[in-house]
């Protein structure tokens, strides 16, 4: 009865969230006196997982799983979980994992808790802490089902190394080839850090005055290896693509560092970014509501500050890498 995790990957490489999930699972497994099994899909070199405490890998290689389809992946995870008699199935909070999680839960007749932050509050009875009310509160949820499915909020535990000796087993779940929903094409910007993957997000609002000024934001993001994002008015005005809109009706952000430039901080914006660890605001209006939720703030003109900050960060990076 080990803990099963789905170690998510893209193009044959593990995502960072897979390592965080493994580290989390190891910690919970230790308090339960059990081991961690990871199921992987079309990843040839799985050795990296041993750094984060995975004891066993069920390795799936299947051409029908080249493109993500929730039904097929959920089926594979369900079968892996049954094979391991897992009582606890852990998933990440990526778009794909959140898509398949409820299917896995229903398939396993399991209780499901999403948005889990941190380690279980209690093991017996099993209680977890979850984000709720758009990060304005936490909810302690008790789960009594025999099998439990949890999805872990990104960045809520951290990537903790914990070396283990890993065994590898080829696993061939029974997967059909008709999944009801067929992926026709994928449109994805390449070579850019995505908001979902980024450790740092540089976000800007109407204070930038126009799309022609976004070069400043992109330069700063490049220096920091960050993703770029924007506020809702900016995407509504068409200054930036919709995919960059973060906030309540846009993308959620849970990153290590969120830098808000020329964003006043409407409550809907804050709701979407508030689970980021450290927030920096740069705004010319000292009364901007963002200052109430930020950790660090600079009152001033973005057009003056951002280029100077970028230059100083370049120098800093040159000395510290």
């Amino acid at each position, binding site marked *: 009865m080990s803990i099963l995790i789905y170690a998510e990957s893209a193009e044959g490489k593990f995502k960072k969230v897979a390592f965080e999930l493994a580290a989390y699972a190891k910690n919970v497994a230790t308090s339960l006196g059990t081991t961690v099994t990871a199921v992987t899909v079309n990843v040839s070199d799985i050795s990296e997982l041993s750094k984060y405490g995975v004891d066993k890998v069920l390795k799936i290689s299947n051409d029908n799983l080249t493109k993500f389809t929730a039904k097929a992946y959920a089926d594979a995870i369900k079968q892996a979980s049954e094979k391991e008699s897992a009582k606890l199935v852990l998933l990440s909070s990526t778009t794909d994992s959140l898509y398949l999680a409820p299917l896995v839960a229903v398939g396993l007749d399991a209780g499901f808790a999403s948005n889990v932050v941190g380690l279980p509050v209690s093991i017996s009875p099993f209680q977890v802490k979850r984000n*709720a*009310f758009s990060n304005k509160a936490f909810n302690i949820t008790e789960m009594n089902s025999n099998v439990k499915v949890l999805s872990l909020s990104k960045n809520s535990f951290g990537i903790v190394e914990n070396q283990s000796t890993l065994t590898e087993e080829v696993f061939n779940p029974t997967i059909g080839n008709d999944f009801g929903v067929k992926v026709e094409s994928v449109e994805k*910007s390449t070579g850019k850090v995505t908001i979902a993957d980024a450790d740092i997000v540089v976000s800007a609002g109407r204070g930038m005055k126009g799309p022609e000024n976004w070069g400043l934001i992109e330069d700063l993001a490049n220096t920091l290896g960050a993703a770029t994002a924007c506020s809702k008015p900016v995407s509504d005005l068409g200054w930036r693509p919709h*995919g960059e809109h973060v906030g*309540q*009706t846009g993308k959620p952000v849970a990153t290590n560092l969120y830098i808000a430039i020329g964003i006043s901080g409407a409550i*809907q914006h804050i709701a979407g970014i508030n689970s980021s660890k450290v927030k920096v605001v740069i705004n010319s209006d000292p009364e901007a509501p963002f*200052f109430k939720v930020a*950790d660090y703030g600079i009152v001033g003109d973005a057009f003056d500050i951002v280029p100077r900050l970028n230059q100083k960060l370049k120098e800093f990076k040159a000395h510290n890498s």
Partner: protein
Amino acid sequence: MKILVCISHVPDTTSKINFTNGDSEFDTNGVQFVINPNDEFGLTRAIWFQEQQGANVTVVNVGGAETEPTLRKALAIGANEAIRINANPTDGYFVAKQLAEVVRNGNYDLIIAGKESLDYNGGMVPGMMAGILGYNFLNSCTELTVDGNNVKAAREIDGGKEIVSTTLPLIIGGQKGLVEEKDLRIPNMRGIMTARTKVLTVLEPITANATTNAIKFEKPAPKSAVKLINSDNLDELINLLHNEAKVI
């Protein structure tokens, strides 16, 4: 085409979030409730199908009588009829079981729910309904067109979008993109008047056990005040981010 739009009755974003009864219940005192934003995008798309393709739109909610104004608002926006399942929506699984029963009995072709609600943010209900019913399912749906039984749709993925094809019956977890914010409708007087006479059926719940139990709520610890840094001293910001916050 018969469309069922699942509506959550949620506190408006600007509401103060407080708890009562030993922090075990959400305090609804003075809270303004609205149609869950993700559901409203879906509802508006459903009304488009009604106007352009002759679809019939039913809205459904699991909740007590106090949620009826939210259903009436959906009727005022243009839904043909409403169903309220008279039960406290204890957890995602319980709600999904109730809604799946409505889907089974009503032979709906397209079931639209929001990808998550603003209150519990669980993101469970559409997927669980799909699991229970074995229907086709698309989450984070940002575009949706229906031609006969054939569906073309888009799903938001990390860093882009995916174009998919599928068939009815279909369940989607919808979000912004199904329609844009500017397309959302404010009920007009005529809509509000007609909504009063539209059918709102109250059904009793079927037996279903919740699989999780929200036992307690907590509010985050109060945040310490922002550290202001002089714009002439950007080295100080870099120093704090590096040595204090340890994020660069």
